[in-house]
């Protein structure tokens, strides 16, 4: 649905987005992950025509954004929840959107309801809103035209935990209805529970992409690891090593290159009481994320330090 092909955006000699390509399919939530300044926002801005691409292109349903008639009815966009006139009320912000798209005022009430902004709050000026309220208003604005594609930049930013859970449910339900969602975040845990696919970006380049499981197997180099803690770790470690598994101490327990079931079997055979047994790749995704993006960040430092000096 959203197709990014060979997209590059350069600012002078600085390359914000470097030849990236990916696709977001209908019925899925795609998480766009990367540290601050990785190029997520620039990519999203190119998607909706606010920033011209230096090379490459983005199409939505086969169309360039400016070719989409009344785009608010097809693509819901939230790029910056704070980019609203501080002197306008929340309700008025939605009213303007609804009127531009040719929607009745009743739609404004529906959306305010949906994002749980009550009548009193909706009559306050946006300048007095908390970031979380602005974010809710922004999501309401993106949903106004009942679009089939959503492009959301850091939508969870500023939301409280309950708000994040609410948004997760909302977007999940939206994707289940056949919608296409692209949402960005710099926080892995915000995205990993909701995204069907993840795209990791660092320093303008895509460093990894795929489903959560695909990324996980990549994170551990294809091998499954297990975290285990027993009453006698020493004995457990020896027994596991004897079976040919690689064992390393990890925190209060052990990290084993094996399936949890195999580790459990060894423990049962040896009659070692286990206090904790779980798949060990959970932290792997985060490690991968940090590792991949840190790598590009280091390269970045190395590359810009030298040409940065003359002047």
């Amino acid at each position, binding site marked *: *649905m959203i197709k990014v092909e060979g997209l590059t955006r350069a600012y002078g000699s600085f390359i914000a987005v470097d030849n990236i390509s990916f696709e977001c399919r*209908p019925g899925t939530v795609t998480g766009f992950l990367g540290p601050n300044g990785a190029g997520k926002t620039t990519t999203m*801005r190119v998607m*909706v*025509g*606010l*920033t*011209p691409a230096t090379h490459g292109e983005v199409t*939505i*349903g086969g*169309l360039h*954004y*400016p070719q*989409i*008639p*009344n*785009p*608010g*009815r*097809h*693509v819901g*966009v939230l*790029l*910056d929840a*704070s*980019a*609203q*006139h*501080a*002197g*306008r009320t929340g309700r*008025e912000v939605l*009213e*303007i*959107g609804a*009127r*531009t*798209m*040719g929607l009745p005022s009743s739609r404004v009430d*529906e959306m305010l309801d*949906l994002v749980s902004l009550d009548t009193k709050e909706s009559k306050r*000026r946006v300048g007095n809103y908390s970031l979380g309220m602005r974010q809710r208003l922004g999501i309401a*604005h993106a*949903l106004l035209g*009942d*679009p*089939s*594609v959503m492009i959301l930049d850091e939508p969870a930013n500023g939301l409280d935990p309950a708000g994040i859970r609410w948004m997760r449910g909302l977007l999940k339900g*939206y994707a289940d*209805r*056949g*919608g*296409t969602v692209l949402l960005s975040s710099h926080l892995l845990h915000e995205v990993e529970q909701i995204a069907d696919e993840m795209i990791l970006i660092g320093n303008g380049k895509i460093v990894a992409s795929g489903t959560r499981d695909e990324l996980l197997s990549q994170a551990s180099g294809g091998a499954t690891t297990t975290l285990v803690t027993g009453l006698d770790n020493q004995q457990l470690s020896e027994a596991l090593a004897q079976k040919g598994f690689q064992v390393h101490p990890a925190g209060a327990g052990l990290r084993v290159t094996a399936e949890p079931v195999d580790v459990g079997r060894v423990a049962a055979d040896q009659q070692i009481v286990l206090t904790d047994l779980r798949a060990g790749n959970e932290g792997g995704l985060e490690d991968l994320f940090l590792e991949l993006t840190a790598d590009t960040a280091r390269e970045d430092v190395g590359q810009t330090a030298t040409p940065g000096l003359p002047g």
Partner: protein
Amino acid sequence: MTATALSFDVSSTHRVAFGRLVRVELRKLADTRAGRWLLISIVALTLLVLVIQMAVILGNDLHPSWVDFLIGMNTPMGVLLPVLGVLSITSEWSQRTAMVTFTLEPSRMRVVLAKMVSLLILAVVAWVIGMALGALANVLYGAFSGNTVVWGSVGKLMFLYFLNYVISMASGFALGALFLNSPAGIVVYFVYSFVLPVPFAIGAALMSWFDDVRPWIDFGFAQQPLTDGTMAGTEWAHLLTSGLIWLGLPLAFGLWRINRTEVK
């Protein structure tokens, strides 16, 4: 929200109707505190000027006609309407609403055109209100003084005032588009319309060649005959030439900039 399946199908959607854009832009002129108060101040100041004028006239036993009241109310309108012109475009940038505006209507020139039309409509409304207030003042003068109310022939003057409003609002809009920054737009507009005339006048008084050139390059000076009602062939040529310098060029460059710039 409806529970129907979502699919991307643009075949039955029409582009945003231009009339809708104009109505939205008109709404945006008045739906913020700043905008609302600017409109209220324009009307309030116009009323104030008329009240003062009335007091002076009655106190000194002068004999005004409708034209005199029109000249009076022309001042606050002419000063403040251009500010609205500046803000109409710059607030999209200073408040960063351009991001939303241009994602809902990606054709930036359509949005700009809608803004221009909305300002034109506002100029008409301001002009009608101004004429009506002037007429009301004239009637009140008759009632207060007991003298005969003089209406005189104001048709041409009314048209020229209208032109004056449109030009000053357009100048404000052009400078707003050029700078895309509210303070810069407003300050430059006021410098250009109130400060610049001084060196222009001094230059014209000291150098005869500059005196000849001045009407061609001083837009404010070239507009003077509009207010005085003494427009003729040469004056129109002056207006056109100086207008190109002060209105045409900034507007053209501003539009080019709006179309090309990255909206943040």
